[in-house]
Each structure stands twice: as C-alpha cells, then as structure tokens.
C-alpha cells in the first residue's frame, strides 16, 4: 500500500470504491488544507484593509500626543513648517468638501439623467455605443485629467472665463429649466381636465418658463462680466472632478434603474401613464436607493482624487470668502498629503509627518463609512426588491 496517493490515482480509486482508510484520511486532510489555503488567500483583502488601518493609525496616533486634536479640527491656520508650527486643518477639510460639492453639482444631475436615458429612452444599439464612451472616461488616468486642467483648462478660464462660464451655464441650465418647466406645469395641471387643463398648462408654462428665462438671463449677464483672476481654482477642479465621477454615477445608477424591472414599468404603462410619468413616479422612486449609492460612490471618487487637485486647485489653505466662492484657490486633504510628504521628516517623527497620516486616516474613515453606507443601502434595496 503506497503511502502517498497521487490525485489522479485517488480519483480512480474512488471511482472503483477502493479507497483505503489512509487514502480517505489523506483526502480529507488534503481537502481541509486546500480549503484553508484557499480561505487564507481569499482573506488577503481583509488582511490588506486591516493592515492599512493599522499602519495609518499607528503613524497618526503620535500626532494627538504631540499636538492634540483641538487645533487640528478648529483652526484654519496651516503653517506646518514654521518653528512654532500650526496645524489647523479646518480650511483643508473645507476645501475637500467644497470641491466635492462642486463635483456633485456637476456630475449628479448629468449622470442620473444620462443613466435614465440609457436605461429607458435610448434604443439598444445606441446604448452599445455610449457604454464604451463612459468606460473610456473612466479609464483615462487622473494625471491626464490634471494635465488637462492645468495646461489647457486653467489658461482658457483666465482668458475667457466669463463667456465660457456663461456658455457652460446655458448648456447645463437651459435644458434643466425646460425640463423643470415641463414637470412643474404637468404637476400643477394634473388634477384638472379638458380645456381647463390646457389653459392651466399654457399659463403655467409661460409663468414658470418666463421665471427661469429671466433667471438665466440675469445669470448670463453676471457671468459674462466676471473676470477670473486665477484659473487654478475650486471651479476648475470641481468641473474636472465632476467629469471624473460621471462614469461611476452613470453606471451604478443605470444598474439600479435596470434592476427596477419590466413588470413595474409595464404596470405603470397599463394604468395609462406616459413614459415621463412612469419614469418620474415609478422608476426613479423605486431605484432611489441605488441612485443614492451611486452618488455616494461618486463623492468618494471625487474626495479621494489626488493628482487633479494637486495640480490645478491652487493649494491655498484658506476658506474662500464668501465660502461658496468657487473662483478662489483651495487646498484639499489629498493634495496636502501628496505635497507635504516630501518635507515631513520620517526620522525625527515630527508632528508634521504624523499630521499627514491623521489626514489620511480621516480620508480612510470617510471612504470606509460611505462605502458601508452605500452597501447597506444597496443591500436593503435588494432585500426589498426580492420580497
């Protein structure tokens, strides 16, 4: 009786039901070993996450011992290199938040609309063309976006900032205004019938549309008159980050919209609803949580991006005045880490080195929490969908 039985033999033996006790034991031990190796390898991402947390926290903790946390969270004075260093990161947190907000404003309406369009409006053949475009947008490396923002976009903004902004505003807001007008007039007159309905529709379109038009014209006048002193500012970065977050938002919310299912849509049509009504009242509410998750993922993409903000945000650690002034330079967490790591002396274990790890920890926590949130939302939605 050979002690070691090769795999091929064991197969044959089992086929012939001729397995000795030893062979059986061998096999079960082998299977157990194989399985545990498999699990060990599969846990690599678990281990990776644990290690990342451990090593970031390990290097972040000394900062709290050296400097404490109060100044870090409440002061806006960021002077890490002076003898009496100050580590007020409030403005940097604010900068990250501001560009992320900007990116959301750029990406979410466009992304969700595009997703709706892809899932419900466009024919299949066009969808096949659009999908690769989205994937290409997602595939372009961030340093390329940064290069574009710094070398092409920033000078362009400085030279013809006002008119460019105005044109952008028209492109984005005019269709939205038309859509909002349509939706509002529809809502206002939905209770009425016959002639009254038509009249109310016309009146409401005129009213709401006129209001929007007036608003747009005023905005146009304001924007054209604007001169942009510095092209590397929060707006530049927001737009680029928005475009970078688009693919995520589109693909995740499209998945959510597709998951709503044909029967719900068909039910709605059967009740006499138009396509727009079906979309607005049935499909979007049903896919709400999926879209929410998409937005969260988009936010994560924007807040974690480094190269674009490092190259094109201006890196001024200051809360713009007034706070929503997107035309001023800002500084973000990621850019601070990338830029300051060069000086931070690892050897002496200075506060300046550890503060960057505190920032990384904040980013990490944020990413972790929003990721959990989006998972929980999606999981709940899936459960509800299946019940």
């Amino acid at each position: 009786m050979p002690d070691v039985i090769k795999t091929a033999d064991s197969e044959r033996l089992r086929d012939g039901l001729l397995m000795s006790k030893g062979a059986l034991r061998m096999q079960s031990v082998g299977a157990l070993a194989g399985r545990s190796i498999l699990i060990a390898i599969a846990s690599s991402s678990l281990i990776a996450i644990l290690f990342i947390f451990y090593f970031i926290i390990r290097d972040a903790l000394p900062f709290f011992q050296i400097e404490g946390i109060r100044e870090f969270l409440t002061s806006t004075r960021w002077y890490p290199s002076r003898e009496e260093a100050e580590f007020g990161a409030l403005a940097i947190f604010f900068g990250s938040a501001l560009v992320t907000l900007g990116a959301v404003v750029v990406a979410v309406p466009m992304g969700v609309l595009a997703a709706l369009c892809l899932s419900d409006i466009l024919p299949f053949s066009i969808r096949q063309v659009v999908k690769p475009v989205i994937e290409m947008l997602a595939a372009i490396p961030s340093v390329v976006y940064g290069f574009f923002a710094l070398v092409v976009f920033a000078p362009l903004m400085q030279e013809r900032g006002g008119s460019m902004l105005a044109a952008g505003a028209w492109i984005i807001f005019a269709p939205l205004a038309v859509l909002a007008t349509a939706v509002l007039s529809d809502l206002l007159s939905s209770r009425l019938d016959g002639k009254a309905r038509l009249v109310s529709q016309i009146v409401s379109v005129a009213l709401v549309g006129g209001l929007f038009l007036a608003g747009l014209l005023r905005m146009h006048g304001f924007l054209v008159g604007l001169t942009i002193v510095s092209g590397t500012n929060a707006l530049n970065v927001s737009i680029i980050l928005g475009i970078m977050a688009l693919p995520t938002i589109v693909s995740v919310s499209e998945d959510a919209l597709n998951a709503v299912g044909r029967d719900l849509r068909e039910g709605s049509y059967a009740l006499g609803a138009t396509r727009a009504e079906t979309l607005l009242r049935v499909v979007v509410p049903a896919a709400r949580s999926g879209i929410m998750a998409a937005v969260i993922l988009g936010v994560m993409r924007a807040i974690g991006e480094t190269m674009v903000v490092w190259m094109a945000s201006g890196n001024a650690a200051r809360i713009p005045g007034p706070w929503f002034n997107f035309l001023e330079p800002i500084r973000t967490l990621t850019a601070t880490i990338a830029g300051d790591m060069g000086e931070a002396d690892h050897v002496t274990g200075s506060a300046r080195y550890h503060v960057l790890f505190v920032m990384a920890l904040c980013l990490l926590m944020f990413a972790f929490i929003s990721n959990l949130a989006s998972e929980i939302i999606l999981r709940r939605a899936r459960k509800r969908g299946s019940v």
Partner: protein
Amino acid sequence: MFKFKSTIATTIGLMLILSFAWSGAFAESYRIIIDGSTTVGPIAKAFAEYYMAKHPDVSVTVSESGSGNGAKSLINGVCDIADMSRFMKNKEFAAAVEKGIMPVAHVVAMDGIAIIVHPSNPIKSLTVQQVRDIYMGKIKNWKELGGPNVEIVMISRDTNSGTYETFEKLVMSKKKIHEKSEYVGSNGAIRQRVQSTKAAMGYVGLGFVDRSVKALEIDGVMPEASTIVSGVYPIARPLFMFTNGYPKLGSHIFSFITLYLTPKGQEIVEEIGFIPVTRY
C-alpha cells in the same frame, strides 16, 4: 476566440521579451542615488547626465522631492547625495548622528530668489518691506504700489521646499505668509502660474527666470549673477549637496560631488542659470 486569445498572449509575451532584451543591453552598474530639492534638481540632473555620458558604467537616479525629503533619505541611508536649498536643521543633524551618518555639506552653487511678475505688470521694483507686506496680506492690490487696480494673486512655493524656507527667512522675517497665497509644488510651476496670470506675483530661484516673466528689482538691485556674487542682492542663498562623510578620494561619488569645482561643472551651473561658487 482562440485566435484572439493567442494574439493577446503573443502581444504580452512580445512586450515582455522586448523589455528583457532592451534592459539586457545595460549591464549592472555602479549607482549614485540623489534625492532632494527641486531647486538644486536641474543642477543634479545636468550633472547626472554629464557624468553618465562620461562614465557609461555609472547609473545616477535623481528624485526631486523637496529638501526635507532629501535630508530624510540621507539620514535613512537610502541616498548617496541629498540636494538641499537650505542648510540642514539641527534636528536633522541630531537624527543623522544618531543613525551613524555624518552629513557633509558641499556648496555647489549660489542662487538668488527672484521676485517675478507677469511682463505686462508696470511695476519694476519693490523693496523687501513691500514684498513682505504683499505676502502678509497687508497690500492687496497692485494699485497700492502704483500699478493698475487689480487684486494681487500671490503664489508661493509649497511649504516643503527650501525655497519657501529661505524666502520665509530672508523676506518674511518670521512673519506669516497670508493664507490666501496659492501654493504650488515647484519653481517651474510658479513661473508657469505667473506667466499665465497677469495679476500674479511669485518667487523662484534665479535659474527659473526666463523671458516669459519679469524679475523685479529688490531694493533697487536686479537679481543677476554679478549682484548676487557681490552680495548686493538681498535675497540670495547657497545651494547644497550633502554626502555621508567626505567621499573617498577617487570614488565615483567623489568625482561626482566635486564636479562643481571643475570648469565644465561651473559651465553647467552657469548654463542652467545659477552662479558657480568659485566666482563667489
């Protein structure tokens, strides 16, 4: 399907083979690792290329990651030469000695920090006091200096640079730079921001001043080789390379680090726009 797979496999294989073949052409070589300041970077890079051309068996790598990083790398013993645009700090010295490293400074060149503006800016000269006031946020508009009514966009080097620290020491005299100042990662980036922004003002090493920006007279003195050498120009500093101990005579590091003393080395320093020390 099969055809497709094999095509991809062949492509990847070819790429690998290509890189093998290509890299095989270079035999294993003596290495000099340089890390540190972006200001000294151009000198180090030019020296590196010159040296590699003369000694094909030597491979020199240059990282430009900031003076502080250079010091760190030297202290950790992971680079042979640290480029620094400021002198090593006491703390860094202490850390080095603790690790058994003995930093030795070599002054490879002199550099003036030029205050630059866009060429369309009518301002020709400022005093150190005025520059300080601008960076402190006291002077906010070019109007206050006799220029047009445009808000000043001040641009500063990132806090991790020796240029920043020198500027802070020589110009700001311990006053804080106003938080509105933009920070960029390198001398080149400052010049680029200034040449594309009419209202901007920045400071760069003399080697980075070119036709596209205008250097200002400071206290009535133009930043030029002659004024920096004679010490008239107020914002000047030496540029350093640090080694661990004095390099052994005849070693590659020795001949590299003493390049700046040779006529060729001085010519290189001059061509890049810095001032050779021997003139000093």
